[in-house]
């Protein structure tokens, strides 16, 4: 398991503070809390990487975050750290013969995952493509806005994090703030991310997004059911991405990701790749399936398919 390796790897033990001081000196913006900062700011500054925390340490951190978020958003916010389910590896299917490009998924995702409305952050981008050209990303259009979809002669291809088995974004992270979980979900520890954005450059799917500003997230719309590695409010200056709705899918029974639930045409499919009875396995075994940019050997677990 790469997780194990990185944990035992001395580089992983390297202090992020040291790293940050180096970076900060170069940028001329030392990121230490100022001298009147509250206790909780200092606590979060000295917090360990998620994967290094003991259970009591993690519980303390979750409690601190719950308190902080509940105060900010004026409601009882839950921050869980539900672990992976044994024997589960998540896979996602997208039926290109059904998708009509309506973007219900884009906004369903924003709502569920507490993305910033303004400035706008979308984890899902829907590409409009020409039927004649096929999957030709050079000619993709994602600002299409006709009165009705689908439009004649076009098909639609939503793109989001592909939860690669071999994720290039993870490899380039200088501080191990992002990694692949045992169930295949690629996550970010927002408290550990230094915002260098190497991962954004490394991702061939444009699936990672940077928080330039404080999230414009109206308190009334804030989803209080959160996961530490998922949809909890993110600090400014970190990278975020789709996690297959980790806060929903890691339960038994677990809900479908929000984008699957909201899709009006049923083009989005989700399940356990290790379960022969799952709809995702049926698709892989019985339909015409392809993955995006296969030649890069990223081995996505996001399968595009044609049901017809």
């Amino acid at each position, binding site marked *: 398991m790469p997780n194990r390796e990185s944990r035992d790897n001395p580089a992983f033990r390297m202090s992020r503070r040291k790293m940050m001081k180096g970076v900060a000196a170069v940028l001329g913006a030392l990121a230490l809390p100022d001298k009147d900062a509250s206790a909780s700011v200092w606590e979060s500054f000295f917090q360990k990487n998620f994967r290094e925390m003991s259970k009591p340490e993690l519980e303390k951190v979750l409690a601190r975050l719950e308190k902080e978020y509940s105060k900010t958003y004026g409601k009882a916010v839950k921050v869980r750290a539900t672990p992976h*389910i044994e024997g*589960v*590896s998540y896979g996602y299917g997208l*039926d290109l013969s059904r998708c*009509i*490009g*309506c*973007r*219900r998924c*884009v*906004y369903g995702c924003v709502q569920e995952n507490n993305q910033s409305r303004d*400035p*706008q952050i*979308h984890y899902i*981008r829907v590409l409009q493509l020409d039927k004649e050209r096929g999957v030709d990303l050079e000619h993709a259009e*994602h*600002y*299409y*806005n*006709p*009165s*009705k*979809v*689908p439009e004649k002669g076009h098909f639609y291809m939503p793109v989001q994090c592909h939860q690669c088995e071999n994720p290039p974004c993870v490899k380039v992270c200088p501080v191990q703030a992002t990694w692949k979980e045992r169930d295949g979900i690629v996550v970010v520890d927002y408290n550990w991310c230094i915002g260098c954005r190497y991962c954004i450059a490394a991702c061939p799917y444009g699936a990672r997004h940077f928080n330039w500003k404080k999230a414009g997230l109206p308190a009334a719309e804030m989803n209080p059911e959160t996961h530490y590695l998922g949809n909890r409010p993110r600090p400014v200056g970190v990278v975020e991405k789709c996690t297959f709705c980790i806060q929903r*899918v890691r339960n*038994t*029974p*677990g*809900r*479908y990701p929000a984008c699957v*639930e909201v*899709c*009006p*045409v*049923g083009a989005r*499919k*989700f*399940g*356990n*790749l*290790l379960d*022969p*009875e799952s*709809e995702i*396995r*049926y698709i*892989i*075994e*019985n*339909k*015409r*399936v*392809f*993955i995006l940019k*296969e030649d890069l*050997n990223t*081995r996505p*677990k996001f*399968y595009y398919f044609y*049901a017809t």
Partner: protein
Amino acid sequence: MKRDRLRHGFVPGMAALVFCVVAGVASAAPLQDKGSAAKPHAADAPERQFAVPTPPFTPGIFPCSECHKEMKPNPTRRTLTEEHTNIVLNHAQGQRWCLDCHDISNRDKLRLVSGEKIGFGESFRLCGQCHGDKYRDWKVGVHGKRTGMWNGEKQYLLCVHCHNPHDPRYKPIPPMPPPTRPENVK
């Protein structure tokens, strides 16, 4: 199962597992026969109960018998003028008439070619008579949509939640707004 799928970047460790699974055996072994190698996939399962939401009727129209039990059924193909005037068949209409699907004597039921009467909660069986491929995919959650829990109880949307049985082509809908163009981001 198509061989060429091997090329589609499937996790090699898992490939062995996947390709030894029997896909599409036609035998109707009982569903609870867990673990047996020749177990048919759910798509081949014999008829079973599918949890579905209530049919999407226009409010007030059901039960149909409210009006129809007093009426003499009229099997003549015609343009309806008194009632249901909004229903215009655009679904293999040349060959078909209302009473191929709706039971003539009990209007609260649908009718299969076999003569079996079924409730509106099972209308997928009616559609399945002619759209066997879609029905098969629907049962495993691939055509249409299941809601609920990915690893637990699921509900199935009926075909008629998405397709008007009288005019079934999926109707275009307005898209949600496009993303902000980078040059417009403040």
